[in-house]
């Protein structure tokens, strides 16, 4: 079995003016496609060939750097696309809203803490809102293409929200101003999808 580049659930220009079409096109058709192709090359002819991405990531500690980096890159970008929407932004509702308020005090405090995790991740990586095995929420960040599904990361669990802070995610539009990119990301967050993940 080989992995295929997932289709974007919207057009490249659908997240304008927050995320520009050129960034989306290169990010999806070059970077995400690159991770997908490299993942397929890394697992070809191995016993990973018949496994799903979730199972691969849950047992990543015994795998090569090629499987780790590209498996993470394949999964993280697919998740990232789904967690954004042209109809996004605003605040979560229902149980996710309650859990965020209970954990962080308010949505604004959550936003501040999540933004800080994203802004201070040094080098390439991701910021996460994670649902831990006991059902509680935690903010974390990981280097490069690591993610909370990997068995050897510090904060393990189900990613509810993920933000790509590799420079390729924002450099064409924001250059060195990562904080402005993070602020714009909040305008396109698909809270419906985040809530669905929280309940799953």
């Amino acid at each position, binding site marked *: 079995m080989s992995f295929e580049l997932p289709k974007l659930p919207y057009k490249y220009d659908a997240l304008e003016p927050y995320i520009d079409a050129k960034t989306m096109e*290169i990010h999806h058709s070059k*970077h995400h496609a690159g991770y997908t192709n490299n993942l397929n090359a890394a697992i070809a002819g191995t016993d990973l060939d018949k496994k799903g991405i979730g199972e691969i990531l849950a047992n990543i500690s015994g795998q090569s750097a090629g499987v780790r980096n590209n498996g993470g890159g394949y999964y993280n970008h697919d998740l990232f696309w789904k967690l954004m929407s042209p109809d996004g932004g605003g605040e979560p509702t229902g149980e996710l809203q309650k859990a965020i308020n209970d954990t962080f005090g308010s949505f604004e405090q959550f936003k501040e803490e999540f933004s800080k995790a994203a802004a201070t991740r*040094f080098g*390439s990586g991701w910021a996460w809102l994670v649902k831990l095995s006991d059902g509680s929420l935690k903010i974390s960040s990981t280097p490069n293409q690591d993610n909370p599904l990997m068995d050897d990361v510090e904060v393990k669990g189900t990613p509810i929200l993920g933000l790509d802070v*590799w420079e390729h995610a924002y*450099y064409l539009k924001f250059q060195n101003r990562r904080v402005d990119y993070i602020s714009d990301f909040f305008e396109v967050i698909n809270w419906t999808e985040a809530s669905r993940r929280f309940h799953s």
Partner: protein
Amino acid sequence: MKHELPQLPYALDALEPHISKRTLEFHYGKHHQAYVNNLNNLIGGTPFENADLVDIILKSDGGIFNNAAQVFNHTFYFMAFKPKGGGKPGNKLNDALVHTFGSFEKFKEEFSKAGATLFGSGWVWLVADSDNKLSIVKTSNAANPMCDNLKPIMTLDVWEHAYYLDTQNARPKYIENFWEALNWEVIEKRFENL
């Protein structure tokens, strides 16, 4: 000691078409400057306040290390360019590269491959060990080979901010351009002063 952004020995548009003015405006004017500013802010009131840059790199960690090393790394990178650069190193360094890698072309190929395959943000270095034996090493994020008792001779920045405005995802294209802007006189001098 207050650290300062070093003046570049060339104009910001001088490396075109290999490295654009716009890239240097951000890379030197914003990123390099921010590392200098952050470092100065972080060391105030610490034992590193009056230390020289290399000393800080060898003895610090966390945010102070990251910013100090990035100040050094960027200065080391920017100082080894010139307008109408490129070509090959002079005899002494060339002989050493031939001795270690087989030929200048093979060195170039191996160094470029290290740059293309470094995952995430980081740097590629030509270094010498304590016996002045040459090798190519890759470091992640701000890491600097001096911390491993290796002496840096030349470096390539493969953080995406070094090339994304010019070549986007095509990092190998940026690496090709990098060779065309190198100032081998500076790199040779570093080698001769090992």
